[in-house]
């Protein structure tokens, strides 16, 4: 996808390459503890936190966004705590299918944020998740989505942001968001 946007990108696995990156994406597919453990075992947990402290742009995607929060109901390990938020399971409501899987509209609460550029009036994204992020403070909620109640579809705190949906699987809306991130 970055190739299509003509943006240089590479998959990094060492603390050195994390610290020399200009922007960093923290992806995540899988169970919360498995992802946190993988980050720890690879020795990258500290380098991601250091990176975030340098004010360079960091974007968490899906479980990568959930990893930015304090904790998750899916596991027992602590999150990175970069966003004051909690990851919780969708409520057990009659007729609410879990996972939340499919295309859904999002409402940008900070429409002039650089990540939301040209997305604020019309955008839909692909979601696949059973746990959702609830921010302690509404100012960290960059966008919300409604599925059995509102949850944060995107979060932000300074240079650290996260999206619950999969921009890499959301056609031109996702291309736009990743382009926005690369330009931020």
């Amino acid at each position, binding site marked *: *996808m970055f190739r*299509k946007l003509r943006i240089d990108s590479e998959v990094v696995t060492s603390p050195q390459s994390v610290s020399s990156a200009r922007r960093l994406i923290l992806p995540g*597919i*899988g*169970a919360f503890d*498995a992802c946190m453990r993988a980050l720890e075992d690879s020795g990258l947990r500290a380098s991601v936190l250091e990176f975030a402290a340098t004010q360079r742009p960091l974007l968490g995607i899906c*479980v990568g966004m959930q990893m930015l929060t304090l904790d998750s109901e899916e596991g027992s390990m602590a999150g990175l705590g970069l966003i004051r938020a909690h990851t919780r399971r969708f409520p057990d*409501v009659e*007729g*609410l*299918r*879990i*996972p*939340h*899987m*499919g*295309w*859904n509209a999002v409402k940008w609460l900070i429409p002039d944020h650089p990540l939301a550029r040209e997305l604020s009036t019309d955008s839909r994204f*692909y979601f*696949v*998740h*059973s746990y959702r992020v609830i921010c302690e403070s509404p100012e960290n909620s960059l966008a919300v989505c*409604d*599925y*059995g109640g509102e949850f944060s579809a995107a979060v932000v705190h300074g240079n650290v942001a996260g999206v619950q949906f*999969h921009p*890499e*699987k*959301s*056609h*031109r809306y*996702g*291309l736009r968001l990743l382009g926005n991130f690369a330009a931020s």
Partner: protein
Amino acid sequence: MTSLRPRLIPCLQVAEGELLKTRQFKNPVYLGDPINAVKIFNDLDCDELVVVDIRATLARREPDYALIEEFASEAFMPLAYGGGIQSVEQIRRILSIGIEKVVIGAAAVDGDLISAAAATFGSQSIVVAVDVRRTFLGRHEVWTRSGTRNAGIDARTYSLRMEQYGAGELFVQSIDLEGARSGYDLALMKQISAAVRIPVIACGGAGSLEDIRHLMQSSGVAAAAAGTMFVLHGKHKAPLISYPRPHEIASLAGATRGTT
């Protein structure tokens, strides 16, 4: 909103690098290059794609990772791959290529792989294929290995069991109606969808948007998949890839509430 816009999913059959189409899981017809098909569906802003290698399990072959990698690089949309998957390691390899979900058929039966895979990768990545034949008495039986082995269990019980093991989604396909273009097995889809809480993708029998509208109105499934309808055209069944426009898909959802 607790109901999502219905997903419309082309289901592509491949084997040995070729795009194929069967009828009732038999008589595969060669249609062309599967990578080109994925590319066209991507350009058409398709909701999601399912690609199934219909010979891998029978031939005891590993998934074709090189081909899967080419799919992943062409698809900026969710992609599920099925065919020949038997281990957690194979699933890890496929997901690391950039595929969202794996579809597991025969290897799902005893439950161990599904439980292990759901614990490692999360349920959302694990789809179980439920291929169903209808008996003379109207019973829905589950068959595996491209419809060659009777699993000896009815579709509803099997679906509930798979949900319990940790499947995140069920791909329920009617073998009898596959390629028939006469409409979905509504009774089957309704029964499974009502029994489980995870999303159900219905497949087998779609011939038109009307068939999909019927399915969406009456069955409660989360997604409609179709092969023939999206890859063949007209009564002579010429290979032609098509996909409805966004407003046509939106109208399928509106119909659920709008009609009287």
